[in-house]
């Protein structure tokens, strides 16, 4: 049993990658640490459970990475996806630290998968967890336990006592009751608010009812809201988030990675009126797949259909939900209650606009349409080989970017610009500092590990002083 009457050096709220990295780092720096995870044990680790890889800079190929990925290149990629909306000093600091993280997480028991040349074209930039995110979490939890970190599950934090930028105590749920715990420092690593539909509605309106949440139902943003209400400076645009198009048949929460679709570039995407609305061939997956969530969210009833034909049926990753199949476009339309005549016209116009080219989905090839709005600028090939197929898709929210502002020490900044006395933040809850918009695969883990490690170390030092 954990003794909750004692005062801990460091209280970590959350149970994912950021929280565990912080807890381990604080413990290794000599602090006594309590981790409060709101979820039951099986669901421990929030969205981290669903992750697969992490993006880190490195100067040379290793046995898990196929080539060098310099700090500069990482920085350029980040600038590209965020379109400059990032805190340069913080981002560069994170990228520099990421080099060291690759080895540090291994010291915490995490194992990397040797590059299999496998499913994603990320073998150079990203390292893959052997067994995936839950395997990685299991390793971090074992290490934390071994080091003597106290961990409580089903321990949702309900309130924080903060006085003028100084954390004093937290109230947590314990069974049917409430307990107050005191600690010298706080590390907030409780994720974003993507599972809080009501909160999402404030920015998205009723459309948010049609959003599917890819990850944990436990990231309701309660800690984020408490912190912002108690004087911590806000960072990021609340409508910015990582959202992809996922299968409309996926569960409301926690469907994870297997509900995604990689097939956009192989077909066309129409809305419920049977009309195309965006250039499906704009850029190479996975660079561009993260825009489709927002695109579908902007369509009527937040639904769209990826339409393709038999010729590409086996060209992309197999999917959990099979595509809906029909022998004609009209029949396909009927299966989704789309207007058959409109869909037939959309496909016919698309087919007529396709110019011959040499198909290659690994590069921006020369298969494109001419005289069509919106165009399909690459990988455009006629949809004419029955049977025809379609996947219904909805916006799948991965995580939100609105967060707490921090400095290079992962210390929260208050509204007046002053650093908080003893409060730190790591992971999704402060991702908006680095990610103003857009996303580069694997950066969620980088933010959590790098700032988690810093936050733990700084909190431990803060507690000693």
């Amino acid at each position: 049993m954990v003794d909750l009457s004692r005062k801990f050096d460091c209280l970590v709220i959350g149970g994912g990658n950021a929280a565990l990295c912080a807890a381990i780092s604080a413990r290794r720096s000599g602090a006594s640490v309590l981790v409060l995870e709101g979820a039951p044990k099986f669901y421990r680790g929030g969205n981290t459970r669903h992750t697969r890889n992490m993006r880190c800079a490195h100067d040379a190929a290793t046995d898990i990475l196929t080539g060098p990925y310099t700090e500069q290149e990482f920085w350029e990629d980040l600038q590209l996806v965020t379109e400059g909306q990032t805190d340069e000093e913080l981002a560069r600091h994170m990228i520099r630290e990421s080099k060291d993280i690759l080895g540090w997480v291994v010291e915490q028991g995490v194992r990397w998968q040797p590059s299999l040349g496998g499913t994603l074209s990320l073998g150079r930039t990203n390292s893959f967890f052997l067994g995936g995110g839950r395997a990685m979490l299991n390793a971090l939890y074992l290490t934390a336990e071994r080091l003597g970190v106290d961990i409580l599950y089903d321990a949702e934090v309900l309130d924080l006592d903060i006085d003028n930028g100084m954390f004093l105590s937290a109230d947590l749920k314990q069974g049917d009751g409430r307990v107050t715990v005191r600690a010298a420092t706080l590390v907030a690593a409780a994720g974003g608010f993507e599972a809080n539909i009501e909160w999402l509605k404030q920015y998205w309106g009723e459309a948010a009812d049609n959003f599917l949440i890819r990850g944990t139902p436990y990231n309701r943003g309660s800690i984020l809201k408490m912190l912002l209400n108690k004087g911590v400076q806000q960072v990021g645009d609340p409508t910015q988030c990582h959202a992809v198009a996922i299968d409309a048949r996926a569960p409301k929460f926690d469907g994870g990675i297997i509900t995604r679709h990689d097939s956009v570039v192989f077909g066309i995407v129409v809305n419920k009126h049977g009309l195309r609305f965006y250039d499906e061939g704009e850029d190479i997956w996975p660079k561009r797949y993260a825009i489709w969530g927002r695109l579908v969210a902007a369509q009527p009833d937040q639904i769209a259909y990826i339409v393709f034909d038999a010729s590409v049926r086996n060209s992309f990753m197999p999917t959990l939900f099979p595509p809906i199949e029909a022998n004609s476009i009209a029949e396909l339309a009927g299966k989704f209650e789309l207007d058959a005549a409109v869909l037939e016209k959309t496909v016919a116009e698309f087919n007529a606009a396709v110019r011959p080219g040499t198909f290659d989905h690994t590069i921006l090839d020369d298969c494109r349409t001419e005289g069509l709005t919106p165009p399909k600028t690459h990988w455009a090939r006629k949809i004419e080989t029955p049977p025809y197929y379609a996947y219904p898709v909805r916006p799948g929210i991965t995580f939100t970017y609105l967060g707490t502002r921090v400095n290079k020490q992962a210390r929260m900044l208050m509204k007046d610009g002053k650093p908080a006395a003893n409060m730190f933040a790591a992971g999704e809850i402060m991702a908006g500092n680095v990610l103003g918009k857009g996303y580069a695969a694997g950066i969620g883990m980088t933010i959590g590990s790098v700032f988690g490690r810093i936050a733990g170390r700084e909190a431990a030092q803060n507690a000693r002083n």
Partner: protein
Amino acid sequence: MHGTKILEEADRLMTVCNSCRYCEGLCAVFPAMEMRRSFSDGDLNYFANLCHACGACYTDCQFSPPHEFNVNVPKTLAVARAESWAAYAWPRAFAGLFARNGLAISLIAALSVAAFIFGFAALNDRQVLFGIHTGPGAFYKLMPHNAMAALFGAALLYALVALVMGVRAFWRDIGEPIGMLVDPPSLWQAMKDATQLRYLDGGGVGCVNEDERPSDLRKIHHHLTFYGFALCFAATCVATLYHYLIAREAPYPWWDLPVVLGTLGGIGLLIGPAGLLAEKWKRDPALVDQKRMGMDVAFIAMLFLTSLTGMALLLLRDTAAMGPLLALHLGVVFSLFITMPYGKFVHGIYRFVALVRYARERRMMAGV
């Protein structure tokens, strides 16, 4: 559509896993699955026999129960595996033995032991059964060597024929006829993988048993069991050669090769099965095919008893207990032989065949 309900479930899971692939680095099952987009009955039986039940993919899966996707690969493949063995059984009429294997083995073992005791007594008078016999040929006072050799030779031959017929059925099911047999690199690769238990390590950290803490205990005890068995088998072979080639008769002195091999193997066969049983006891029920628990336990118990009776015989062979102990030992070994094709023993053989196929698939993929 698949032949059985468990294959339906295995298909569902492999479809989930194929769109996830997080476990591809853990063992051979996932890469084998990734080579396909749809799965025939034979494919699923092949995956099932490729699985070493390390449990890692259950503990590492974000969709294992209570998640609504309800992904439990180790247990599903364990059930599919056992059902596949019953389906391959030869003669077909004995397929049912797999279902109530624990009871069947106990009965067969008891009957065999009784038959040997009764046989010894009937062959000789009571003095011989309880008499003290020493020196070369002592065992054969109870049963002539030729009779012993004929009896066990026949039992072993029967087991071999039944096993070969089963493997043939498996081969056909997984769509891989003689090809693999004439592919020495694949055979060699599979031999290395099997003898090292390469895939009983959860991708490197060990096997998951009672909780999420991996350990190597199952692997170590399996090694002790397997190599213990191999040493005992070698001891028997050497003794047979001694007898026919250089007319050297059992029992042998303690320093002689058959005794040394048999003693070392016997120790492995005591510790290994005991350890496996202990681990099985502790194992998270979510990972276990409860229906077939009896089969696993019966086989482990038979191995343990084989060793225990053999060791007792070694220790007490110069006393009046020799006769009954020899009957006991021979009874246990006899029933081990004849029940081999209808119980857990076959897992090693089918797994080896699956490994050969996997090695071959890998080689074909790599274009060699």
